[in-house]
Structures are given as C-alpha cells and as structure tokens.
C-alpha cells in the first residue's frame, strides 16, 4: 500500500508540474531569502568584529585605573605617565603595542579655503606613526595625501568627516583643546591625509594627530591615555598572563580585553544581535507563511479529490500519508531550489555585496561595516534551512488534510 501511495504521490507531483513548481518555488523563495539575509547579517557581525579589532580596540588595552573608571568623559589627564618604559617592557616580552592619546577637542574651519565657517566637537586621537601599525591598520586605509610624520602639526581625517567639513589635503584646520593641566590650547594644523577605512566609525569620527606633537600640546610628554596591544587571538590566556605580569608592579595600570573595551559596542551588539535575530525571525515568519499558504492552497484545492478517495474507501491513514509524502517531496524540491537560490544570493553577497553606505554615513546602526555589506558562506544555515523548510511544508499540510478528513465525505465532494 505504501508503495502504491508513494507512486500516486509522485504522479501527482509530476503531472501537476506547474503547481508543483510554483509551490516549490514559493518554498524556495522563503528558504533562499532566509539564507541570504542570514549570510549578510552574519558577515556584518564578523566584519564588525574584525574592524573593531583592526581600527578601534586591538586585542586589548592598558589604561590607568582612573582613566578607565570615567572613560566615558575621556579623562585625558588620567594618562599613563611613562608610556615609553611600559612599551619597552611589552616589546621585551614580545608583545606588539601602540600608544595612543585620546582627547576632546573642537575643530574649527574658516571660509576660504572652506566654503563656510564652521566648527565641530570631536575626539582627537594621537597616534605613533611607526608603532601604530603594529596594532592597527589605519595606515593602509589612507585614500589621499600621506600619513602623519612625527612632530608636525598635521591632521589626518576620516573620509566622511572630511566630506562634511569640505576639507581636503593641504587645507589648514584649527583645533581647540585643553591641556592635561587645564589650559586652553589652540593647534593650527594642516590636513595631510584622508583615510577611508572599512570601519565607518573611523570615517565618520576619525581625527588623527602625531602622538609626539599632541603630547607636547597637551603637556603630557611621554604620556599616552591608551596602550593598545595586539596578539594572536588563538592564544589569549598566555598573552594576557604576560601582560598582567608586566603590570604586577604598576598598581595604577590595568589591562582590559578588547571585549571589555568594546563593551559599549558589544552592548549595542547585544541589542543588535536581538535585532539580527528579530530580522531573521521576521524573514523566517514571512518564509514560513509563504510556504504554509502555498501548501494550504495546494491541499484545499484538492478537497474534492480527497473526498473521492475517501468515498472509494481509502483509509484515512493512507490519505494522510499520500498528502504528507507529496508535501514532503514538494518541500524537498523547494528546499533544493531554496538552497540553490541561497547559494546564488550568498555568491552575490560574497563577491559583490550590497552597498548601503549612502544610508549609513550619518547614522550608526551598530555594525562596523562601511561600504558594501557582504556575505559569508553559511553552510550550517543552508543545511538547517533545507530541513526546516521541508519539515514546515509537511507540518503545514497536516492542518488542511486533517480538516478534510474531519469533514463529512459529502462536504468534501461538494467543495
């Protein structure tokens, strides 16, 4: 009997080719869409983490405890005093490290060469042009002009902030800030380079000056607010242990892992992950509803046929199996198409990506993804989507088949 039913199911699918195809395509659309969105969001998360590491946090950072406790205010005066000594110890221990200063400031530009006068509150970052490269990839993202040279009053700007100010290489720029002793300090600098980083936060907010020059201007010789460290993330414990040993006789200082440093970001990431799950849930629901709808239609359309099979004395169990086998086969065909579609989406995303940068210049959606959103190959998602899609197709057909079997045969036949 089972063999006969399977054959009948197969005939139904093959002879209703158009319906089978449409139903399978609806399922495929749902599955393909889910795989594509999942690929893109997962890739965005990975890229965010990579960018965060490459441009903002490194593997971890050393600051003074006092700085850390009120880091939201950017308390530059709580800097690490003899950063060079510490850098030497880190270097001796085989660790890559880069000192940075962060300070609040205001950029001021005047008409000619700028189109209009203007000012903007920013966070200034002092970087060591040589050492910075050991931790961050800033230098590689220079899109115009040249990188900073030690001791010169020079500025490098993120591409979007430069665009906003209408700044260009060679333009003068005035920076007003406060020394660590509380005095006003005015810096007249020249824009020497523009960076275009994959991390949109850098493009949107980056204002970089040479470390030594900034140390002088802020009255903090040899000082740095942060010492970022870069090490192989596959050996976190050993490296962190090394760092903590070095800090053993430095009670004022503290090491923080990149996760802690990025806590704010990760807090967003947490919310975002909820957002990601939410988007995926939405896509899942849309896909599931699409699959359900087509399956429901496919069964309801055949109420009469179901009634005739009952009138002919086919057992309810066999009728159920007939429809479930059909649904399962459609589900599998749809899932195969869906995965193929998903692979096509993924391929497009991985090779080209979707460029949302037009919309992302002014708003921070939490992702550290500049330019195009790419995709990753999400094999696990593909496999689970394949099975879930096929299973949904069967589960969903249970409902109308049951209803058909609950009705009287007369009702089924009348339709």
């Amino acid at each position: 009997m089972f063999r006969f039913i399977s054959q009948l199911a197969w005939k139904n699918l093959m002879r209703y080719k158009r319906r089978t195809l449409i139903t399978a395509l609806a399922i495929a659309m749902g599955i393909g869409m889910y795989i594509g969105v999942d690929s893109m969001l997962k890739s965005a998360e990975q890229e965010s983490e990579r960018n965060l590491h490459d441009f903002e946090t490194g593997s971890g950072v050393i600051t003074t405890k006092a700085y850390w406790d009120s880091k939201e205010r950017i308390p530059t005066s709580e800097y690490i005093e003899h950063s060079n000594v510490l850098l030497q110890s880190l270097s001796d221990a085989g660790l890559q490290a880069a000192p940075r200063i962060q300070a609040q400031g205001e950029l001021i530009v005047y008409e000619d060469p700028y189109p209009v006068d203007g000012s903007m509150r920013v966070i200034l970052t002092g970087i060591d042009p040589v050492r910075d490269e050991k931790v961050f990839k800033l230098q590689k993202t220079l899109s115009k002009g040249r990188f900073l040279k030690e001791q010169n009053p020079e500025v490098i700007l993120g591409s979007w902030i430069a665009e906003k100010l209408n700044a260009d290489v060679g333009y003068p720029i005035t920076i007003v800030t406060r020394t660590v002793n509380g005095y006003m300090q005015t810096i007249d600098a020249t824009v020497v380079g523009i960076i275009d980083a994959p991390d949109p936060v850098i493009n949107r907010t980056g204002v970089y000056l040479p470390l030594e020059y900034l140390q002088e201007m802020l009255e903090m010789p040899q000082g740095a607010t942060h010492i970022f460290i870069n090490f192989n993330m596959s050996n976190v414990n050993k490296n962190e242990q090394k760092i903590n040993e070095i800090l053993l006789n430095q009670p004022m200082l503290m090491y923080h892992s990149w996760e802690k440093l990025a806590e704010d970001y990760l807090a967003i990431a947490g919310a975002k992950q909820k957002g990601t799950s939410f988007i995926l849930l939405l896509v899942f629901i849309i896909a599931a509803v699409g699959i359900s709808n087509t399956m429901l239609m496919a069964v309801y359309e055949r109420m009469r046929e179901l009634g005739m099979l009952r009138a002919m004395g086919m057992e309810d169990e066999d009728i159920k199996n007939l429809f479930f086998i059909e649904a399962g086969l459609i589900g599998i065909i749809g899932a195969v198409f869906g995965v193929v579609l998903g692979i096509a989406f993924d391929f497009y995303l991985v090779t080209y990506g979707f460029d949302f940068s037009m919309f992302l210049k002014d708003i921070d959606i939490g992702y550290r993804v500049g330019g195009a959103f790419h995709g990753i190959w999400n094999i696990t998602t593909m496999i689970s989507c394949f099975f879930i899609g096929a299973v949904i197709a069967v589960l969903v057909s249970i409902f109308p088949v049951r209803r058909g079997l609950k009705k009287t045969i007369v009702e089924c036949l009348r339709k």
Partner: protein
Amino acid sequence: MITIDALVKTYREGESEVHALRGVSLEIKPGEFTAIAGPSGSGKTTLLNIIGLLDDADSGKILIDGRDIQTFSGKERARFRREKLGFVFQTFNLIPVLTAYENVALALNLLQISAKEIESRTIAILHEVGLKGAENRLPSKLSGGQQQRVAIARALVKRPLLVLADEPTANLDSVTGEEIMKLMLELNKKHGTTFIFSTHDPMVMLYATRLIKLHDGLIVSDERR
C-alpha cells in the same frame, strides 16, 4: 439485499430545519436497476448518500447484505465502501492527474489484488465501457460522456455489490446521457450488479426496471416494470 426501514434525516442550519427524509422504507433486491426520481430537494441525494455510507441517518435502519451498516466503525465503513460499493457522480469526480486506466485501477489498488489481475480487469472493463484506445488519456482530454464511462468502469471494476449513481446523466447532453443509461443497463444485465441511481430526467426513468418517486422526503410511488 438492501432493507431500509423508516429512515429519517433532518438537516439543521441555525434555527431552521430541513426534513430531507421523513421516514423512507424500501427493499431492494439483488440485480435491480432502480431509479430514484423526484423534484429538486426531494431527498434523492440524501438517500443515496446514506445507503452509500457517505452520510448518516438520524433514525431508521438499513441493512445491506444482511449487515447493519449503522453499527460500523469508521474503518469498517471505509472497508465496506472499498470492497462492496461503487459510486458514480454527476460531476464524474475522476482524479485529474490519473489517466483513464489509472483512475479505474485505483479502485483495485486499494484492494489486495495482484498487479496482474488489476491490469487484466482494468483493461477488460475499459473495453466494456467503450474506452478502448483512450486508456492513457487524462480526464481533461476526455469528453463528459467518456469521463462518465471511466467513472462507471471505476465503480464496476471491483465487482461491487451495489453501484450508487447520483444523477449520472445530469452533466451530459441527452444523447450522451442515453448512451450512458444504455451502458449501465447493459452492465447490470451482464454482471447482475445492483444499481440505484437518482434522476429527474423522464428519459432516464424509462431505463429503470424499478422507479421509486420521492417527494419532500417521502416515497410517493414505487413501481416495478
């Protein structure tokens, strides 16, 4: 072979009640070719559905082949229909994806019959109903009359105790309808199969060897010819 006693069926829809059958009693002998006639709404379909185990009566008794079908479980009903009953409907109700041959064979596929026998019986009955050469056509490629022939073959191939045909000619033109009646009568004579069919077409009634007239859920006349 069929004994019906005081069959009552009432449909309730909200407040209103429709008395489809109000006490129908009759007896049908093996091999009879019975027409149930009567105006629309007189209860013909209801009666056939109850005899065919497609619907339940509210009260009354039916014995088919000596068995009280009202005591049957769902499974027993399905089995009874599968083994003993053949149905022909006004709208043919063929399975659209199956060919003429497959539609007929389906009735036998549901029974424990060897593939070989299924084939020979299916072919034989298709030839008998005049569908030689059309075996592999889908219902959509057959005329109404041909479709009804497939339906008749499907009902008869299992060699049933009883064939129930609800207005088998209503969807056919009069010439084709008459052909179908001739075919049914021929099969009735040849195989001795009992037929009960409903109609309100006087031409169709002419073919019946017994004519039962229903009116408002009651039998108003019953004549053998």
